[in-house]
């Protein structure tokens, strides 16, 4: 057991640091450019240096490096320290690009991958529908091939960034006669066309991080399909071997917990700092047990990934673990806030949660129930843990649905 990265990797860290030292922030005239433009220029150089877009072939604009989760982690750490831009955030880089690389046609890769990883193209995802939540495969949005074009009608929901996206990757039902999962296709759609109506979906916090998208006779060329007709379900499940960020969520959880401890120092109970209250101390220390367990589980997963070994059931549990911790942190925070819990969350979205004020804890209190974790999702995850993780038999209902 060795929590350092070892000599060779520390050498690599030096290399990354040296590159960053030379390259970010930009210098001279370039330093006067806007941040976005600076980021684009910097990313080009970082890709050239092999630091970004490591799993993407050079022909599509990537740096095509050997997968190495430890190097990837070191890059994240050093880029984070230097506040240097990583790959463009968002669902295009995270979900569409890997899918295209695995399942897209040659022209699709050429047209979309380089522009997306440069940050020139923004994407949104059209999966969920109002009637299709945890049972995604029951989606109803229709796509019909008419005169060499797909014509799409329906409604999508929980679409993040739909207002500003250039394109959407969307699941639509193209084979209405086929069984549930087999009737779905995966299309790419230009968002800048008539028939697309994007409406922000306001959350209980007051902000709007998601949209509803109404599609009325929306058109896309016949060959803007990824995979074959009726293969959309499989295509949407494509995941490339990639450099999983095993400890990202544990770092977020730790940061949230630190904020909570800080809050307990600032708030009073009975005229004394809350952190001196025996009950609050117990609750904080009990929570820290979960936070630390999550942290070291992340280290172990990182190590297993680096060795190419399976980390086991823990990878199915991470989401529910961080959800549980988030719930507990939120509950304790609202207790610490006391009367300030009467105040509005600030009418804003996730941004408020990231801010420094106490109202961020009200936002967090509500976000701990957010759509990513709400409702069926947690129960579906418990099904997965029970069935795939522990080997328990499948539900009758789920069996029926998978037919």
């Amino acid at each position, binding site marked *: 057991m060795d929590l350092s990265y070892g000599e060779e990797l520390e050498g690599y860290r030096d290399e990354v640091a040296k590159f960053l030292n030379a390259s970010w922030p930009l210098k001279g005239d370039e330093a006067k450019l806007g941040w976005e433009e600076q980021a684009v220029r910097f990313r080009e150089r970082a890709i050239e240096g092999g630091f970004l877009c490591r799993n993407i072939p050079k022909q599509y604009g990537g740096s095509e490096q050997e997968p190495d989760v430890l190097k990837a982690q070191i890059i994240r750490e050093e880029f984070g320290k230097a506040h240097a831009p990583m790959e463009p955030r968002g669902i295009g880089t995270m979900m569409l690009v890997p899918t295209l690389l695995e399942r897209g046609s040659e022209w699709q890769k050429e047209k979309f991958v380089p522009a997306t990883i440069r940050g020139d193209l923004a994407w949104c995802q059209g999966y969920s529908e109002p009637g299709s939540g945890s049972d995604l495969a029951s989606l109803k949005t229709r796509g019909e091939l008419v005169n060499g074009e797909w014509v799409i009608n329906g409604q999508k929901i929980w679409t993040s960034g739909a207002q500003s996206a250039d394109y959407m990757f969307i699941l639509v039902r193209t084979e209405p006669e086929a069984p549930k999962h087999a009737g779905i296709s995966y299309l790419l759609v230009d968002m800048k066309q008539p028939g697309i109506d994007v409406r922000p979906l*306001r959350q209980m916090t007051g902000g709007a991080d998601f949209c509803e998208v109404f599609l009325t006779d929306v058109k896309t060329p016949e060959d803007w399909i990824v995979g074959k007709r009726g293969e959309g379900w499989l295509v949407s499940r494509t995941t490339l071997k990639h450099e999983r960020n095993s400890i990202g969520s544990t770092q977020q959880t730790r940061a949230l917990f630190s904020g909570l401890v800080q809050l307990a120092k600032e708030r009073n109970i009975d005229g004394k700092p809350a952190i001196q209250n025996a009950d609050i101390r117990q609750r904080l220390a009990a929570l820290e047990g979960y936070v630390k367990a999550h942290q070291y589980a992340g280290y172990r997963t990182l190590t297993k990934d680096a060795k190419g070994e399976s980390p086991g059931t823990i990878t199915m549990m991470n989401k529910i673990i961080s959800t549980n911790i988030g719930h507990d942190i939120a509950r304790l925070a609202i207790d610490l806030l006391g*009367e300030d819990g009467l*105040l509005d969350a600030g009418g804003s979205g996730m941004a408020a949660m990231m801010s420094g004020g106490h109202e961020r804890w009200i936002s967090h209190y509500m976000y701990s*129930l957010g759509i990513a974790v709400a*409702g069926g999702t947690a129960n579906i995850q418990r099904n997965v843990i029970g069935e795939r993780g522990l080997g328990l038999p499948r539900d009758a209902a789920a069996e029926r649905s998978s037919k």
Partner: protein
Amino acid sequence: MNFDLSEEQEMLQETVRQFLDNECPATTLREIFDGEVGFDPALWKGMAEMGLAGLHLPEEYGGAGLEVLDLALVSETLGYMAAPGPFLGHALAGLAIACGGSDAQKSKWLPKLATGDALATVALAEEGGAWLPDQWSVPAGASLSGSKKHVIFADHADLIVVGTAGGGLALVERDAKGLEIKPIDSADRTRRLCEVILADTPAEALPDGEVAATRLRDAALVLLAADAFGGATRLVEMSVEYAKTREQFGVTIGHFQALKHQLANMAVEIEPSRGLYWYAAHALDHVRDEAERTAAIAKAHITDRYMQIARDAVEAHGGIGFTWECDVQIWFKRAMFDRAFLGNPALHRERAATMAGW
């Protein structure tokens, strides 16, 4: 042994509920909730005309002469319906004057409060969560200076009952000199809050203010508990209803045992506590030596259940439960109000422990 409501009490709840069904249906509730002001004079006038404004005030002053239990039953129904408006502050202010006011004060204010011609509220909290009479620090006197937080609909009130140092109460009128009222962005948009700033503002103390203040406190705890019981009960119903209609995997989601048990657990958490708030309310008029402690336990217990059930209800509704459009959020924010107003459960549990001699 008759631990149950009278027919009159059941009818009172039914009447209030029908009134709100008619006068504040979902669309109206939503308009008020989303609106700038949050106060609907017509709705409040209608409630006052039903007699809700003076339910508990002495008959000689035009009230109905009922008990705290009856107030609490109305509170449960308002919580169930998430009714927006100034009922809580108004009821408490009237209770304080009836209990601690001079004859002159009673004669001047109670008839107007009973009819709803004047609206009153209570200003209790001070900076740092100082909700309780023994924590108040605004010096008593013929004029008051200081600041009070979280005053319900102070911006619409004709009269504010202000808590003062030493645990007394004083009356401040709407147009009094130096009185400044600042609306606060409130989470619960059905019971909006203001900060009240007093700068050498003329005030008139209640002669029996200390007694009235503790009764006000205990009644407030009970009314919050009752509101929480009503709201939580409604959220369970809404969640069950959703589970019966929402389909996934070819069946309504209420078929899934995991969700079914979550809903059963929600019901098990709230249903038994009906009698707890009843008894706490009853005790305030009839079992004085248990009243203070039972009120503290009822508020802590039921508002805690409400808040957790509100969280569970969001989960039971899936993604849609997290949206502004979904009515669950209205009750969720009322739960936050009921739990935080007058102090978190931990505060009242500690008080209950101390009162038990632990």
